[in-house]
């Protein structure tokens, strides 16, 4: 009997671990378990709706299930008790559940109404089944953070409806953006511009927007080639004047407090590190300052801190970690691939040193209700593609109940 591997989380990291394992040993039994009835994690629910090209990577993942023998075990949330069962049933278990919780700034005023995390907002925009409703935004937004996620949010808020053609943005989100009251967005970074985390291409892309005016402060030259690319891209935006919405970049400002009247935000205070403070008046604060472990994360921080070998992703004998769960909320899809290959190599070398235990693997799910398998996901996928509205490439089904209804309906007729 071949060995079995359970990967918890069918996001890009989990999928890349499965890919590397099956490439090295096509006989392995590899199962990808996800709490959602649909696979692919943040490729579906994080990568921007107007960056469909980046989502093309799912064709590789589809092949895992369609040709390479991996199985999707969807709609199963692994909690601490179930994890023990899974560890008993499989020869190796990989935790690849990502990091879903918006990191907090840890400053006064963060709980005022009008303060929203980028993870929560993007989940709502992209129709994640667990998302809260889209928040009510105001006219003046301060967007805190200088990573690619902040730029994604900035771009979506600044785009005209026509500029969202070809995306998979749903009707509710499209309307929310089209009718948004936002007039003015100030995007604030803690670091100087040349050290900002965003990629220069993300900034260049903003230069194509038709309906915004952009101001950028005078930026000093830098010796770092990577920093210079960012500075050049930002300078290229300065003075862009296209339309009614305005965007202002600010750098080198550390958040101090969010101020409010009653429960509403009225402004955000920053320090420049040299003792001076700036108050930016606003009615909405969006934070995009990273992610941490959510309630579904299986005590992640402790497990990673106690890892046997965190470089190779080995948490404990037979238990591994990959992706954002392992490394923290940094790195793009390509980074996850390289890292997943290293984790897979570690698993395979551990297998070589251990005798086979003849564990049941996938059989543990027999008789268990509610599991969504890959064929079920294909039905959901087909329904989403067939339901695409004009100007959209897909109509994402936004609730578990509707997803499961599609699965149930086809079960009745087959």
């Amino acid at each position, binding site marked *: 009997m071949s060995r079995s591997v359970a990967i918890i989380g069918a996001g890009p990291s989990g999928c890349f671990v499965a890919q590397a394992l099956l490439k090295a040993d096509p006989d392995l039994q590899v199962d990808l378990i996800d709490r959602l009835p649909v696979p692919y994690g943040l490729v579906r629910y994080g990568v921007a709706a107007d*960056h469909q*090209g980046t989502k093309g990577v799912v064709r*590789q993942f589809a092949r895992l299930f369609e040709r390479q023998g991996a199985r999707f075990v969807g709609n199963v949330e692994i909690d601490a008790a179930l994890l023990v069962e899974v560890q008993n049933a499989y020869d190796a278990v990989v935790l690849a559940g990502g990091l879903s919780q918006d990191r907090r700034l840890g400053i006064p005023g963060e709980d005022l109404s009008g303060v929203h995390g980028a993870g929560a907002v993007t989940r709502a925009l992209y129709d994640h089944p667990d998302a809260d409703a889209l928040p009510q935004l105001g006219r003046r937004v301060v967007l805190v953070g200088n990573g690619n996620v902040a730029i994604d949010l900035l771009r979506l808020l600044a785009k005209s409806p026509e500029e969202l053609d070809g995306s998979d943005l749903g009707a509710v989100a499209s309307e929310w953006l089209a009718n948004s009251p936002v007039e003015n967005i100030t995007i604030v970074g803690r670091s100087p511009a040349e050290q900002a985390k965003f990629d220069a*291409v993300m900034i*260049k*892309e903003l230069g194509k927007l038709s309906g915004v005016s952009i101001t950028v402060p005078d930026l000093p030259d830098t010796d770092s080639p990577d920093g210079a690319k960012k500075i050049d891209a930002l300078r290229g935006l300065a003075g862009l004047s296209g339309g009614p919405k305005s965007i202002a970049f600010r750098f080198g400002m550390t958040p101090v407090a969010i101020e409010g009247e009653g429960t509403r935000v009225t402004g955000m205070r920053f320090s420049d590190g040299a003792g001076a403070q700036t108050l930016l008046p606003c009615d909405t604060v969006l934070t995009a300052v990273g992610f941490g472990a959510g309630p579904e994360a299986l005590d992640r921080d402790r497990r990673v801190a106690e890892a046997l070998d965190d470089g190779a992703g080995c948490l404990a004998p037979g238990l591994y970690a990959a992706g954002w769960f392992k490394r923290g909320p940094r790195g793009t899809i390509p980074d996850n*691939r390289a890292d997943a290959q290293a984790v897979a190599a570690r698993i395979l070398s551990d297998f070589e040193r251990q005798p086979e235990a003849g564990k049941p693997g996938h059989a543990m799910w027999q008789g268990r209700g509610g599991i969504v398998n890959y064929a079920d996901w294909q039905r959901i996928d087909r329904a989403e593609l067939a339901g695409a509205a004009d100007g959209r490439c897909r109509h994402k089904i936004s609730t578990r109940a509707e997803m499961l209804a599609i699965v149930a309906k086809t079960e009745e007729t087959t």
Partner: protein
Amino acid sequence: MKIAILYGTETGNAEMLAEDIMAELEGAHEVTCANLSDIAPADISDDRFYLLVCSTYGDGDLPASAQPFAESMDGSDVSLAGVHFAVFGLGDSEYDETYNNGSFRLAELMTAKGATQIGERVVHDASGSDLAEDIAFPWAEAVVAQASEHLGQAA
């Protein structure tokens, strides 16, 4: 004919396509497939036809797995005279200014060392509606047919 497929990739799309092209050509030819990260300029020989499959990153840069190869090519005085290759690019027209620059640069690196390009560079657009293999298979068939005229005796 002996065919060597070499790919440069970051997220694996080019790798999957390279493997698909290998499967497509294997029946009629002797085909190998390797990551450019495992290839040195001196490994390239004129006894086989090279199919290069390469994506683009950053600001029109080569993908990570092709960068070590590009660096050794830049710093090497190897001659690739007599070597024949064709190139297929993967890119995304969202990045309009640098659309498919990576495969273009790879082809330049080869010709700069004296290699001969067979056929036009053909590219796939991740934001387009075509599947990469639907463009790449006809490309591979066409360039292999052209190359067999050049490599007839050698291979």
